[in-house]
């Protein structure tokens, strides 16, 4: 998988992470307006899984795949990155899988649950949401850092790779610049 992501052309990654979810959304919009808004929520996990698989898969492949080219005297915190990337990877599918059954709102499901369980649900979601936000931000940071370290072959500071950090953050735009450079690094 890592090889495939690293060797993929920029437009392939763009279609996987942006084009495909975009088209799915275009199909879903009229469907949910014609029938009922629930359709959107029902099929949302599908869109999210396509996006998550592409985006997190790319982040993972770049930072793990490029570790071999990092100079020996630079220490990278790979384990911390792996742990923090896995938090959103596990949490988001679970959230989107069970979003219909959450005991909030005026629906029939969960109305008979007592307040303590509802608060516990809320606290768990709140905590994991913040954690996975942090996880994704750390992954962006780590990937940008790895990328720049390999490019410059020395220890880098944030001011060196701030540009790359934002390019990965604004993924659909940045990928057009980052991916060709990664292709070149691999060869």
């Amino acid at each position, binding site marked *: 998988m890592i090889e495939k992501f690293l060797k993929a052309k920029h437009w392939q990654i763009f279609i996987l992470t942006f084009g495909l979810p975009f088209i799915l959304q275009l199909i879903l919009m009229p469907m949910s307006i014609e029938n009922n808004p629930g359709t959107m929520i029902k099929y949302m996990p599908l869109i999210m899984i396509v996006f998550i698989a592409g985006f997190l898969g790319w982040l993972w492949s770049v930072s793990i795949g490029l570790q071999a080219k990092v100079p020996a005297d630079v220490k990278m915190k790979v384990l911390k990155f792996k742990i923090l990337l896995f938090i959103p990877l596990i949490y988001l599918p679970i959230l989107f899988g069970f979003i219909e059954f959450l005991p909030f709102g005026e629906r029939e499901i969960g109305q008979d649950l007592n307040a303590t369980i509802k608060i516990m649900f809320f606290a768990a979601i709140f905590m994991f949401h913040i954690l996975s936000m942090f996880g994704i931000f750390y992954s962006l940071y780590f990937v940008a850092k790895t990328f720049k370290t390999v490019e410059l072959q020395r220890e880098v500071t944030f*001011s060196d790779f701030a540009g790359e950090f934002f390019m990965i953050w604004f993924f659909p735009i*940045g990928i057009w610049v980052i991916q060709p450079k990664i292709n070149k690094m691999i060869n």
Partner: protein
Amino acid sequence: MLQKSSAFVFWISIFLGLPILIWYWAIGIKLQNESFAVSKLKILLFKISIIFSLAYGIFFFIYYMILNGDIIMSLHFIAMISIFYPTVFAAKILKSAELNREATLSDYMGDIFLMCLYPLGIWILQPRIHKLIKKEEKRFA
């Protein structure tokens, strides 16, 4: 504006907004060097877009906020473009001055983001500008 500290540029542009355009102007005009020739048309476009954005910013405040006027779509749309163009131009000039050659889009794409998100970008770009100015001074001394 270029010699000022990062904190000065940050606070003045956070509170007033419009001074960031003067900062773009200073980068776009003063950091040009002999590394490559910028076409006169582009410089003119850069200057016009900054002046237009500044004028529209003041007009916006008076017309919409004080006089409660209706929105003028075409002017607003032109202002949107003309507030974006200086960031691209300034990023290109800055990167070219650093690399001593004409920078390509893939070189200065990151800098465009830093220019657009200026509350964060100033802290990274301003030290780089200071370094550049110091280098220039050393060369001429």
